């Protein structure tokens, strides 16, 4: 038998690391601009924490688009729902939240977060069946339907909880900062960063080490071929959609604690932010989403410190700059 083209040189798989260097470069460049190393460290820690929370919220959106070509404009609703549901646990157990013991605090936080994820995930199931399935494959209607869904969800939250802001104080043991030399890093930010990293690593492990993950990645690239290999991708998609919704809910809880308040309109501001993140990252790319989230958070924190006036439009400027460089985002996953 002929050595079929085995002698063809195999092009080295090129690792595209420029996007990864971007946040690093941004962090390095700002050191002299900010001047004080301790301020810089604090800002960097803040960026990482904020970036991780945004990543958790945005990851589901980008995966859902990548896998099924569905643009869910209502993704922000899961964030708000998650935050509100958490108050159902946090408010009645306010005493445990106030208790000065990490374990007691966690004993309330963990169930609150789990409940939020469960409710957001379940809501994801409903949204997928009711709003997305009927207009499957029609972008225009998808955008319209899910925008309608966002409004309905937001207004239902108002109807159920009222228009007032609900305070969600941080548990006592998570207040305050770790002081290292003259650098103060808020404890909650460390926790948020760790959770975000854990979620990122977990997603990467699933995507790269399990057959389920292989299927998702293959589905992102070519849905039809995955079906032609005999896999029922609709079910897979529903699973990813629910997971993404649940993650958005988790992000909502974390954001609520970070801001120490919950409000139904939080989904509006965050929707814009996560859209910018997934656009920057390249629709469908988890790695791009991760880097994009950190970049957005860095621009918000460093920018807010250096040129507060620009803070309002800094995200847009960042987006414009990145799309000028790469019109499909940092990592263009699909050919869509």
């Amino acid at each position: 038998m002929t050595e079929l083209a085995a002698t063809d040189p195999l092009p080295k798989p090129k690792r595209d690391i420029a996007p990864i260097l971007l946040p690093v470069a941004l962090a390095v460049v700002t050191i002299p601009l900010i001047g004080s190393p301790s301020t810089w460290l604090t800002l960097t820690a803040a960026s990482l924490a904020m970036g991780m929370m945004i990543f958790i919220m945005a990851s589901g959106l980008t995966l859902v688009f990548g896998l099924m070509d569905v643009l869910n404009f209502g993704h922000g609703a899961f964030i708000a729902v998650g935050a509100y549901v958490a108050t159902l646990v946090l408010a009645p157990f306010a005493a445990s939240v106030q208790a000065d013991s990490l374990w007691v605090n966690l004993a309330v936080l963990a169930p609150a977060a789990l409940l939020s994820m469960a409710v957001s995930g379940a809501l994801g199931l409903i949204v997928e069946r009711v709003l997305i399935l009927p207009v499957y494959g029609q972008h225009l209607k998808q955008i319209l339907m899910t925008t309608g869904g966002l409004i309905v969800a937001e207004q239902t939250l108002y109807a159920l909880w009222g228009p007032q802001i609900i305070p969600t104080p941080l548990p006592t043991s998570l207040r305050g900062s770790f002081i290292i030399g003259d650098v103060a890093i808020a404890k909650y930010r460390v926790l948020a960063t760790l959770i975000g990293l854990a979620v990122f690593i977990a997603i990467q492990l699933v995507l790269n080490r399990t057959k389920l993950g292989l299927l998702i990645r293959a589905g992102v690239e070519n849905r039809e071929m995955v079906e032609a290999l005999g896999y029922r991708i609709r079910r897979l998609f529903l699973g990813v959609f629910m997971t993404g919704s649940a993650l958005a809910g988790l992000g909502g809880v974390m954001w609520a604690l970070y801001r120490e308040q919950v409000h139904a309109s939080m989904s509006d501001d965050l929707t814009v932010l996560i859209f910018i993140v997934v656009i920057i990252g390249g629709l469908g790319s988890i790695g791009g989403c991760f880097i994009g989230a950190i970049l957005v958070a860095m621009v918000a924190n460093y920018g807010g410190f250096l040129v507060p006036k620009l803070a309002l439009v800094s995200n847009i400027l960042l987006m414009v700059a990145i799309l000028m460089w790469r019109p499909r985002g940092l990592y263009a996953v699909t050919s869509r």
Partner: protein
Amino acid sequence: MTDLLKLSGVHTHIGRYHILQGIDLSVAQGQTTMLLGRNGAGKTTTLRTIMGLWQASRGEISLAGERIESRTTPDIARLGVGYVPESMAVFSDLTVKENLVLAARDGPLDDSQLEWIFGFFPALRRFWLSRAGSLSGGQKQMLSIARAIIEPRKLLLIDEPTKGLAPAIVVALIECLKEIKRKGATILLVEQNFFAARELGDNVLVMDNGTIVHRGDMAALASDVPLQERLLGLSLETHQ
């Protein structure tokens, strides 16, 4: 000889366009049936309709006696149909190994089957852990075919495997397909390359404008130059 696959009166619409206009064909068990025809004749659409990737708007499709025209693509694949699309559709972000792991739907990769495939596609062994996206066109085609035969399938649908490949590679690929034939596979093979068609086909179907315009023996067509010219607008002599 029994028919494994049978289409009768199949029509397919894509959007507003009426592409397949009443296809009747059958593919005999254990044989290789060639599907020839001009560009745009509807060959790919026929395969996609069998695979359930387009919905037949009318007509019947049966596989081993079971009606499949209203089944979903995954269900059709699970009945034992392997598909090698025109675009090859390897998952370029996944490694060669991962592509085959996914293709082996029912369980872990079978070593003896792998060795058999490596026997005629040695490049796949060499680039086992490389990203499929970095393979050459010919290597991608091998991977795409390997995906379809990594587990035993009742029927293989292969769409223009020689498209865009260098002549030497085409020759090698034909040898591989012959090897797969020898294992007793039933194949419906779309080809533009008449040389390849003549080498591989037992039976032949010629399509034009969404219908079958000729069916018969491959050997008969291969020796009937005027018929080739009439059906395909080419003759073997000029094309070789």
